[in-house]
């Protein structure tokens, strides 16, 4: 008699009628108009079925975390610091938690002043607090195209005007950003900040090149505007050399850094942090007080215990090993099962691959078809504010076993092939090439269009 929609047979409040709803609608804030439900969300309801292989998540694999270690740490907290762990804490977070933050940041070459750090309820709250502190309705916020889908509703809820800058294999097109800044200046408008995920971007998987990082930081200084560097994946590198974070290049004057324990430890503990220059931090702290007073003290204790154990680097090394294999498995499966017309990014780290299909395929509709084949992905439209991305998709490789990745990609490849073939029949232009062998694609090193995601530059070193 299990029924997920009705836990414990609880009695819900009486249902509202349509007229009630329309009365409520009269009370809604104007900003709720931009909060939309979508066909995609309806379709996603089907992905919960156990037989569906879902490449749609953005999940780290928490099953890799040793339960004994978890139990030992929680026990120690209960025995030694129960009262404190169950109490409110400082809005900025415990010093001990901030020490853990400094350790993680040092691992990526950053040495912020501890006073500039605030512990937040996940990195997501960092995005929210920064936007709350900086954005008035109608202000321009610049981000990448595609951008992290979860940032869009945050920007929208503060009624920002979102402007997206194209990415290519080297991340955000900083030349286009310069043009945009010039245009905005002519119009007498100054963007409040530029939001970027420069390393192993979500959803595109691309990484901003060093040259562009330098230029971006320069631009921020020249224009006195803030860069918001959201960096959840920096330590999840499977190949290539680490690049300095924007925060490190800039020194923290014009860069706000958002980090998280979600991908290197657990998203369930909802622990992240934000580093900002003191004047901005002051506003962020006030904003956080208004939002939730303080971040969970219980999970802050957990992180402290975990870091005290001294194995956190080892754990990251372990998951990196696992994710590297899964990334390889997905890339190989893509080469084998996706049609010649498709292209995709080859990320050096992170959790995602961004695949782009012929423009006549709408991936939201494709998802409906894929779900009948028991496989799911995120349609690309979710990463744009203007309806672009309709022929792209985000694929996650971290949360699913290699075998499932192969099978999932095979199934998606099959439904795409049907659509490609149908397009041929509809237009009298049958696809020139069918699916091509992995070896052929790997060896051809063919020239791909530049400047458009997800094409990778020819000859660039692989992962």
């Amino acid at each position, binding site marked *: 008699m299990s029924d997920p929609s009705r836990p414990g047979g609880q009695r819900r409040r009486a249902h509202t009628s349509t007229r009630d709803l329309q009365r409520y609608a009269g009370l809604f804030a104007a900003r709720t108009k931009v909060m939309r439900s979508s066909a995609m969300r309806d379709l996603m*309801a089907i992905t919960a079925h156990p037989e569906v292989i879902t490449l749609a998540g953005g999940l780290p694999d928490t099953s890799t975390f040793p339960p004994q270690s978890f139990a030992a740490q929680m026990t120690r907290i209960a025995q030694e610091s129960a009262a404190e762990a169950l109490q409110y804490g400082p809005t900025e977070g415990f010093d001990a938690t901030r020490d853990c933050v400094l350790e993680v940041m040092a691992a990526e070459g950053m040495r912020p002043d501890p006073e500039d750090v605030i512990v937040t309820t996940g990195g997501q709250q960092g995005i929210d607090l920064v936007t709350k502190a900086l954005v008035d309705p109608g202000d321009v916020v610049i981000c990448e195209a595609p951008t992290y889908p979860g940032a869009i509703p945050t920007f929208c809820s503060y009624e920002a005007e979102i402007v997206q800058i194209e990415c290519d294999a080297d991340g955000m097109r900083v030349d286009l950003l310069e043009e945009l800044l010039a245009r905005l200046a002519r119009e007498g408008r100054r963007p409040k900040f530029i939001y970027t995920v420069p390393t192993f971007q979500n959803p595109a998987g691309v990484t901003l090149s060093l040259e562009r990082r330098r230029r971006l930081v320069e631009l921020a200084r020249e224009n006195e505007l803030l860069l918001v560097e959201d960096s959840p994946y920096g330590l999840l590198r499977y190949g290539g050399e680490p690049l300095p974070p924007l925060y490190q290049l800039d020194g923290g004057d014009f860069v706000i850094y958002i980090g998280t324990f979600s991908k290197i430890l657990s998203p369930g503990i909802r622990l992240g942090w934000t580093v900002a220059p003191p004047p901005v931090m002051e506003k962020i702290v006030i904003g956080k007080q208004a939002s939730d007073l303080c971040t969970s003290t219980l999970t802050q204790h957990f992180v402290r215990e975990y870091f005290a154990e001294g194995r956190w680097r080892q754990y990251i090394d372990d998951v990196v090993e696992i994710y590297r294999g899964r990334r390889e498995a997905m890339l190989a499966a893509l080469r084998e099962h996706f049609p010649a017309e498709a292209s995709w990014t080859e990320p050096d780290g992170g959790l995602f691959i961004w695949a782009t299909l012929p423009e006549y395929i709408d991936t939201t509709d494709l998802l409906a078809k894929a779900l009948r084949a028991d496989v799911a992905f995120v349609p690309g439209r979710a990463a744009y504010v203007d309806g672009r991305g309709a022929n792209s998709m985000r694929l996650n490789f971290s949360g699913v076993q290699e075998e499932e990745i192969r099978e999932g990609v095979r199934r998606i490849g099959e439904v795409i092939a049907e659509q490609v073939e*149908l397009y041929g029949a509809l237009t009298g232009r049958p696809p020139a090439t069918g699916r091509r062998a992995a070896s052929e694609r790997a060896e051809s090193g063919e020239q791909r269009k530049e400047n458009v995601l997800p094409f990778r530059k020819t000859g660039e070193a692989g992962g």
Partner: protein
Amino acid sequence: MRVAVLKGGRSPERLVSLRSGARVEDALEALGHEVVPIDAGTDLVRRLREERPDVAFVAMHGIGGEDGTAQELLDLLGIPFTGPGVAACARCMDKATAKFTMQEVGIPTPDWFSFNQTAFRELGAADALDRLESRLGFPLVVKPSRGGSSLGVRFARGAEEVPGALISAFSYDDRVLMERFVDGRELAVSVLGGEPLPVVEVIPVAGDRYDFEARYEIGRTRFECPADLSEAELRAVTDAALATWRALGCTGFARVDLILDERGPWVLEANAIPGLTDTSLLPQAAEAAGLGFEELVGRILDLALRPAAA
């Protein structure tokens, strides 16, 4: 009475169905019935045999629950159920079949052509597209023949948009419909036990009129019930809806969607199991007729148990 509420399933309208189902369950409980919620899956038949309900309330939308499949199984198990029977469900669900039926009995429905994938893949139907386009004109509406809500429905404003629209529609069904676009007022007539309820008009508040997703969202769409219609308009619209109900063989309840332009009403489709959520049109119509949601659910249940009452 022991009432099984069938909801969910694997159709793209799963979420809507879960909402309809949850709301129906509450109403049934309030009416004093013993409710057995069933999220329809591979164990549907087993569950029904174990639970042995007196009657099933079918709150599933889309393929599987609204196309006669669940109804066929319920027939087989000897469990009475709400809404139209197997044949009517099958006819309503497939828009092409429904439109053929309407056409045969002279109910006005926008001109259309329908093709399955085989026509394009094996019979070169693409070569006839130009002729079809000149017959229907632009914009034309492309939709999956069997599909609910707005999923896969696209406008093609010109010939270049047709292949993409077809591929989208074919993502949901093997057969698609290409239909003349009728520019007019959007109306819905809910029919309960053969009697029409007040007409609902769907009025987009702002934005792209071709944006189907906006359609059923509070704040982006306004509903007017009863719709502001002249006596003659009301009669024409109601007559068309009832004729559709009869032609498709509906029983219990259904909702007929129409467009009204200066030439009169055009029937687009009939929904055998219209949504029963907070924002759905049938409950709104019932409310306008003075029938609260619980009463509506009670009435639908009565109709299932005593078809003669219809």
